[in-house]
């Protein structure tokens, strides 16, 4: 029995409503396969419904946006609203340690892994693995160490056009490491 059969909402329920409900409830990104299973739609129709939902949410009076990353879909608060409402959800989607490691990589990207470990300590290995798993960071072999850099997903997540926007913009920390 698949999820659609288990949770069959009955006839007349809009696939867009099902997707919206699923993404709202899940919090974590939901795989496209899961959405196919939930709605019972063929992939082409699901793509069309997702595009429709994305367009709906892009309206100025809507507070959420549809976010896609590598076949995973989620609903996020629009960046311009986040500062205003963030106190209502004090838990971030990554731990303090992982966020610090990500920040050091981001402000120095591309950067050697050994330099990150020197700054952040041995726990950075675990943080880097998590960041690579979540597609925030990519790594390339560079001699005996790895060269780390942020991904396009990182830019999408923080709604940045480039890293320069982060380093030189209003959100740049007072002191950047060398």
């Amino acid at each position: 029995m698949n999820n659609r059969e288990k949770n069959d909402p009955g006839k007349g329920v809009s696939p867009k409503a099902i997707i919206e409900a699923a993404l709202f409830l899940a919090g974590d990104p939901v795989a496209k396969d899961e959405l196919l299973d939930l709605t019972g739609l063929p992939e082409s129709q699901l793509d069309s419904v997702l595009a429709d939902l994305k367009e709906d949410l892009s309206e100025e009076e809507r507070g959420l946006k549809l976010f896609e990353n590598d076949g995973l879909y989620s609903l996020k608060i629009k960046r311009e609203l986040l500062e205003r409402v963030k106190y209502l959800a004090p838990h971030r989607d990554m731990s303090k340690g992982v966020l610090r490691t990500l920040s050091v990589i981001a402000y120095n990207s591309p950067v050697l892994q050994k330099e990150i470990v020197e700054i952040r300590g041995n726990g950075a290995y675990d943080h880097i693995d998590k960041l690579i798993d979540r597609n925030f960071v990519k790594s390339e072999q560079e001699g005996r160490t790895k060269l780390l850099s942020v991904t396009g997903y990182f830019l999408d997540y923080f709604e940045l056009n480039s890293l320069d926007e982060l380093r030189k913009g209003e959100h740049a920390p007072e002191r950047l490491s060398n």
Partner: protein
Amino acid sequence: MEDYPKEGSEFTRSGIPVVSVEDLNSSKWREILDWYAYSGDPWEISVVEMAQTFQKELENLDGKNLELSGRMVLTCSVILRAKAEGLIDKEQPEEEDQLEEDFDSDYWGYEEFENEKYIPDLEIPLKRINKRTVTRDELSDAFTNAVDVYDRREERWSTEEEDGSRDWGLNFQGEENLQVKLQRLYRKVKEKVSRGKEVLFSRLLNEDTKEEKFRTFMELLHLQSEGKVICKQEEPFSEIEVELMEDSPQPGQREETERQDE
């Protein structure tokens, strides 16, 4: 009030007399109210219907009789109160048997209670996992914090190196002689190994602390460099296995070896 309801009274579909405006205007309005509350069955009276009747009457009076309208409100509230008290009585029967009887049939009205262990289908509201996106300011703050932590650590290490107080785990000064510690560990390895082919690193620890693990590992490396043991690790981060070197002294030769070491 024995003479209530009087002849010619209007009755509801369930046979309860309708409270008329005339009743409430009479000098016996309190007794009538008592009859509703205690003699009549409050469950059979629809407060909604009664209120609607009163409302129509009030519209005709055009708000000129405040005392009557107050009595109307009081009548409705008394009957509502009587209903509520009836509910409390049903929820707290004195006899346990009475409770079971009520629970099985009359109170809930579910036939399922009579024949099977019926569990009401309660829906618990789903709670959303409310983790939110990180803001750019938080990313920036995280960077500042990371650099601060790094700076503080560097400063601390620098100070400790300057005054020689930094504990690298290799500073055995003021402690027992290193050779004594190595011999003690070597004896322990031989005792454990004598019961099997190798001994797990964790079985050599006296306590489960980082410091103890580090010191024991350092001592094992000394023993390995002296050709007394071999440390093996099948996979990164897996448990270290410690074996005695083939030409290392067997347990029976222990004392002689130790004397030579000394």
